[in-house]
């Protein structure tokens, strides 16, 4: 049986089909959650932002038109929700060195693979917010640069530049990870 598109599922849900929403949610829950979690820095904030993003998507179902790609529309809503949250509570919840250290591997995480993963996650957390978001939209959601620029509200060149800087910084972390694995 042919798989229904995101756009068709969203329209079906707006028309009252709850099963369509179940399918849509199962399709996007993981990437969207990780996109928010990597930016929020902690599970509690991520859970709130994730749930709030879906509530906004649900409320906006009547205004959705199938001519717009659903996935980009959904991530734009999530992006705006996350940005609004950090604008309201930036002084207390912005990623501080303490927050970043919480992602650092502890002594109980002794396995090398886990250490490498934590180092990579910490490197992502250490990125400037704008670069981190572009990187997450690329790696988690798989958007191209044009769509990333639309979602974040910047020019294509700006999005491209941010991604290049982010990849450059992560490459150092990945390189040290590989070095550590070889030694």
């Amino acid at each position, binding site marked *: 049986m042919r798989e229904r598109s995101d756009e068709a599922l969203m329209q079906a*849900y707006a028309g*009252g089909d*709850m099963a369509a*929403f*179940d399918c849509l*949610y*199962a*399709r*996007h*829950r*993981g*990437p969207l*959650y*990780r996109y928010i*979690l990597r930016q929020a820095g902690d599970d509690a904030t991520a*859970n709130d932002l*994730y*749930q709030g993003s*879906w*509530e906004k998507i*649900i*409320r906006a*179902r*009547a205004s959705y038109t199938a001519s717009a790609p659903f996935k980009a529309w959904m991530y734009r809503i999530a992006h705006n929700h996350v940005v609004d949250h950090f604008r309201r509570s930036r002084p207390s919840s912005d990623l501080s060195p303490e927050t970043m250290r919480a992602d650092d591997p502890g002594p109980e995480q002794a396995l090398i*693979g886990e250490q*490498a*993963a934590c180092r*990579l*996650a910490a490197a992502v957390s250490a990125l400037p917010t704008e670069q981190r978001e572009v*990187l997450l939209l*690329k*790696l988690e959601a*798989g958007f191209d640069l044009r769509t990333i620029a639309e979602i974040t509200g910047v020019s294509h060149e700006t999005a491209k530049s941010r*991604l290049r800087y982010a*990849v*450059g910084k*992560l*490459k150092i972390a*990945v390189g040290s*990870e590989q070095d550590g694995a070889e030694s």
Partner: protein
Amino acid sequence: MNSDPRDKPNKPEFDPDLAAVRSAWEGLEQTEPPDLIDQAVLNTARRHLERPRRPLRWLGAFASAIVVVLALAIVVRQDQQGPVPPVPDSDGFRMDRDTPVPAKTKQEYEQMMQDEPRKARPELRQIAPAAASEAQPVQGKETQLRPLDAVEEDAAGPDPEAWIERMLALRAAGRLEELEAELADFRRSWPDYPLPPELLD
């Protein structure tokens, strides 16, 4: 819950640095949202479907109520004000000249004019007191206001039947020049009034 297999972008990476980062990224734990959050989101979605939005139903009822209240307020206000009074002219009489003035009223008016002729138009004195004070009676006579019948007769002309009778009398008396003058005046005043054949000759 299972994530869609399309989650992982499978396009070939032309940027080797990005490819290396992606490879390391895929080694990260694929964190999933907690089950409680999943249930909360799904319940929210279901609740919104069970409670269909009716955004404008209350607005229509509210607008209807406002219209009814305004209509009632207008009706009540008009009842309190009573019927609209006729607009008086400058003499204090009704402007509806087709309505006949009761005879008793006419007589009272004429009596009032004869008793107090100078008080008949007090507003004129207020408007032009200098002109009123300079006005002197001609040859010692008091200015008399004419009876209302005479005023109306002047305005509409003499009674046509009486006029015709008078013209017939002139004809019978042989006063033809006066008859022609009267006839000309009559036709100016009553252009459509039928004349007896004696006067048409």
